[in-house]
């Protein structure tokens, strides 16, 4: 019996061997440094691409990014459980005050929040801010509601109820959307308000941009809000949204670029909150969100901190080339400057993490 038990234990030990042996390879130098990041799902496809590409640029570093939502990203980086967080909604004054550690926001990319819908036989739909808000409030309940028909003359809208899909997790995408609605709709701003975890009056909740996209894809008559690349990769129809110039703009990379370019340079440099909603550019798509990586100002581990600073430096410069492939707008230059300044703030035991010359 004892022998048998020993055998069982030995077997489990053998299974474990690869893990242990990797943990202590012959030279400790060869073991890659692991940077763990977590948070926003909006930029996840881009960050995951960066992680894969950066493993080639610097084979000694592995960036493990998990998309668990902006709210969770901030919470985990505050708790020191991950090396960096990510969010599409910068922390509020209140959050910054309550945070146990000092955090630095580094802008990384600009994404568009699109209305993705699933109407068999219909690829185009025009929406205005107030009608979209009404759909998510539950006051416009059917696809052939007269307010929708008024915006879509000539399109055949089914006489069916609208199935609304929203995020169930704390989300920067939700924050961008609800801020946009609050700017345009009195009722929205008084009843729901804006934030990462708003209480939607109607609809089905699901986790992450991934979940909303999957739901819309699988469910006819549904509408949800996701980042452009998710809708595009899943082949979903996206609504054109009326911008302040009165034009219905489809969410394309050009329209998103226009929104990103119109960022207020002085606000960007002064470190104020950057708004990318309702761009003044008449060809711009009105709902864009700036995504940030959130890093502790003082790294616990200098080596890790340096690796992270180098990775982020690479991301806001070289990494931007991958942004366009995935339909994110490249970071406009005032924001690149802001990212650079933020990265120079990073310290470990009082030492700057970035080499002075970079």
């Amino acid at each position, binding site marked *: 019996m004892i022998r048998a038990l020993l055998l069982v234990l030995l077997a489990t030990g053998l299974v474990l061997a690869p893990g242990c042996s990797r943990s202590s390879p012959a030279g400790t130098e060869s073991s890659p440094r692991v940077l763990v990041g977590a948070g926003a799902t909006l930029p996840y496809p881009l960050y995951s691409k960066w992680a894969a590409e950066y493993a080639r640029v610097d084979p000694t570093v592995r960036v493990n990014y998990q998309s668990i939502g902006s709210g969770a990203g901030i919470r985990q980086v505050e708790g020191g459980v991950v090396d960096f967080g990510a969010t599409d909604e910068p922390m509020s004054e209140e959050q910054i005050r309550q945070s146990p550690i000092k955090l630095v926001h580094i802008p990384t990319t600009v994404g568009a929040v699109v209305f993705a819908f699933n109407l068999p036989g219909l690829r185009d739909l025009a929406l205005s801010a107030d009608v979209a808000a009404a759909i998510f409030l539950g006051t416009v309940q059917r696809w052939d509601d007269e307010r929708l028909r008024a915006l879509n003359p000539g399109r055949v809208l089914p006489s069916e109820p609208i199935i609304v899909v929203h995020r169930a997790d704390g989300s920067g995408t939700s924050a961008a959307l609800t801020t946009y609605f609050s700017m345009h709709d009195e009722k929205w701003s008084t009843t729901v308000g804006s934030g990462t975890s708003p209480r939607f009056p109607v609809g*089905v909740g699901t986790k992450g941009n991934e979940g909303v996209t999957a739901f819309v894809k699988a469910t006819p008559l549904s509408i949800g809000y996701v980042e452009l690349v998710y809708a595009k990769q899943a082949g979903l129809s996206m609504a054109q949204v009326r911008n302040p110039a009165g034009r219905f703009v489809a969410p394309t990379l050009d329209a998103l670029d226009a929104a990103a370019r119109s960022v207020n340079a002085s606000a960007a440099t002064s470190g104020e909150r950057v708004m990318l909603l309702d761009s003044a550019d008449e060809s711009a798509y009105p709902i864009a969100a700036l995504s940030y990586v959130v890093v502790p100002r003082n790294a616990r581990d200098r080596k890790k901190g340096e690796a992270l600073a180098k990775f982020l430096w690479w991301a806001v410069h070289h990494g931007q080339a991958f942004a366009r492939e995935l339909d994110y707008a490249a970071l406009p230059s005032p924001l690149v400057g802001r990212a650079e300044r933020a990265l120079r703030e990073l310290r470990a035991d009082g030492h700057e993490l970035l080499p002075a010359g970079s």
Partner: protein
Amino acid sequence: MNEPAALTPSSRSTHAPRPLGEPSHALVDRSLVALGGGAACILVVVLAVVAAVVLDLALPSVRALGFGFVTGRQWDPVHGDLGALPFLYGTVVTSLVALTLAVPVALGVALFLTDLGPLPLRRPVAALVELLAAVPGVVYGLWAAIVLAPLLRTTVEPALEAHLGFLPMFRGPKVGVGLLCASLVLAVMILPTIASLSREVLRAVPIELREGGLALGATRWDVVRRIVLPHAKQGIFGAILLGFGRAVGETMAVAMVVGSRADITGSLFSPGYTMSSVMANELPEATSTLHVAALAEIGLLLFAITFAFNVAARLLVSRVRGPEAALVRVVTPRLEEHT
């Protein structure tokens, strides 16, 4: 089972006179007993730690929200408006619907396996039931999200509304995911659990009773109805309670199809939320202390509910056989001989 007098520690020394020429076993003996005792105490410590940590995390919410937490219908972490009723509702509704669907079928299966089914079929069906009891919840969730939910949306829910739409619970948005979907996947998951536990309980009814009944001219069904079921009643009730406990605690399969919406509507079609799935979704991101504490308090409630059900169930099942019948059933060869 008799308790041999020798097996209490106090009387130990008198029963083990050390043979000459052997090394002192007393010390080894004592230290090994201490080791075993230590290992056993780990179980108590672990349970205490689990309870203490959950309680500690939940304390701010218990203090701040009091009893209103359990009756509050709003869940709005942003505005600090935290009521757990929607989650309690979701958990109770999905578990009860699952039980309603699964129990009759599971009992039928259990009786098939012990008394009623054709003999050559019993063993393969039993093996399959065991196997399915072991399939991980996340696999059930995968199936429910990709296969079951679309089926519900396109076929089952419209049909239910057409035929039973006069009941408010069968009306509403036909979305696929929702309380109904979660209930169905739970029913499928707990069916093997209840079936194999009940089978265990039924098997424990002495074979002599059955033979006596048959010898008196009773049919198999008479034996089941008059002898086996009355004998096994408590145990079966215990098996059902354990099934309920499993349904209440199941997280992943439910989180994948429940619709994640803290709302109380009368409809089974509408999306809902359960206690375990809200913890899985919101704990990693809850930022305010109160939000974390409220989620922990939901955990505390969940802990209390499963605690109560498991204790009750184990009391009932253990009158029949050892409480871990679930696991032991496959393991005890002696029992295999009955079928």
